[in-house]
């Protein structure tokens, strides 16, 4: 830890929790939209944000009853901000659902801890629905050996997986040291503030640790 990090930490603590949450939510939203794999669900952050949205909605509802909306400028600002927050959360959740729908079996097998409780309910229920649908449509008349949906025989896995070699844009939030790209000779040093285009699997761990952010 050098002087920059200490300064960063100090200036960070000066900020109120609310603005830090917004920053975190935006970061999570961008990362979720960019990363090829599903990322861990930010439980605590979402709880705080949702709680705050609920409070703001209550506040708006209380205040609209007794005042003329055209003159109540403060309320308009609150509502606009509220809409923006709702958009962030909605877009974030939809990005996750899109990934869940795209690679359900892969996520169930490898990353089920990254889901929130309701997302796990959704994925299991959805997967059950899909397989009943396949079964009642045609699969039930197949020979028993061919009825599985997660067959790996013959060298080809039926389970579709996300492309972890996909390139992502990222920025280092602090000095992270040398990153070597698997399967190639390339290795480079990543310093705080650096921006790189790099394979997702090379920076995956760093992103999860919060040392690198996706942009």
């Amino acid at each position: 830890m050098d002087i920059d990090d200490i300064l960063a930490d100090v200036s960070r603590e000066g900020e109120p929790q609310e603005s830090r949450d917004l920053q975190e939510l935006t970061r999570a939203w961008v990362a979720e939209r960019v990363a090829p794999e599903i990322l861990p669900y930010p439980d605590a952050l979402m709880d705080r944000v949702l709680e705050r949205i609920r409070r703001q909605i209550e506040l708006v509802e209380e205040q609209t009853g007794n005042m003329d909306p055209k003159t109540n400028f403060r309320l308009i600002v609150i509502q606009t901000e509220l809409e923006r927050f709702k958009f962030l959360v909605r877009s974030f959740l939809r990005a996750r659902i899109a990934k869940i729908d795209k690679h359900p079996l892969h996520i169930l097998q490898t990353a089920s801890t990254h889901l929130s409780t309701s997302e796990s309910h959704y994925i299991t229920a959805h997967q059950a629905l899909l397989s009943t649908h396949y079964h009642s449509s045609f699969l039930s008349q197949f020979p028993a050996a061919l009825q599985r949906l997660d067959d790996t025989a013959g060298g080809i896995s039926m389970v579709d997986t996300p492309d972890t070699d996909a390139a992502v844009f990222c920025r280092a939030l602090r000095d992270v040291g040398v990153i070597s790209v698997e399967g190639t000779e390339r290795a480079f040093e990543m310093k705080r503030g650096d921006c790189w285009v790099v394979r997702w699997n090379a920076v995956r761990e760093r992103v999860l640790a919060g040392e690198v952010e996706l942009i």
Partner: protein
Amino acid sequence: MYGELGNKLVQHAKRTQSLAHLPPYQAEIVRSVTREVRDLDKDVSAILEPFAGSFDPSAEPATACALLVNHLCMRRNKRCLLAYHRVRSDKLEEMCWSGIDVLERQQQQQQQQRSGRNGGESGTSLGAEIGNTSSLSPEEEEYVRQYSDLLAAYKGQWTDIDLTGSLEPPRDLFIDVRVLKDAGEIQTEYGSITLTKNSQFYVRQGDVERLIAQGYLQRLS
């Protein structure tokens, strides 16, 4: 034979991806492909029967090759069927998310066709033909029904957010809208508004988003 029909299904699926609506379910082809798989499977067991479980591929390369071809065809057919059904169910899910009531639309279509046919006084094999006009298979209808329930359950946990809302970043809190179809009275936080055709309003976007998506209102820029 040997995957030809499966290929047709894949072509149908490919075409479906670029269509706005869902073309009729190819029940006949699906049945034929399934039958093909069963026939191939029977062939395989027939070939294997004389060996009574002690088949050695290296001793009989010709038979092994026949088995391999049959086996690969079955797997291929399975993939084609899965792909076809997945494309269609994806499409149905998309409709559920965007708030289109697929089943209601199906019923409307059928009713229109029924009334059209009654008007034309040609009601001989009515029942059978109406059965064909639905572009969903019975299994798909069931799937849509259950998926809507699932979606509603998931959405219900995020009542404040409205998950199926617009994915465009919001710019203005209030927008101008024109009413395209009579939508009756809606309740907003600023009181109720009666939406009659051709009138214009300056309303909160969040209150009318649903109606815009359903085509009752048009947003004026």
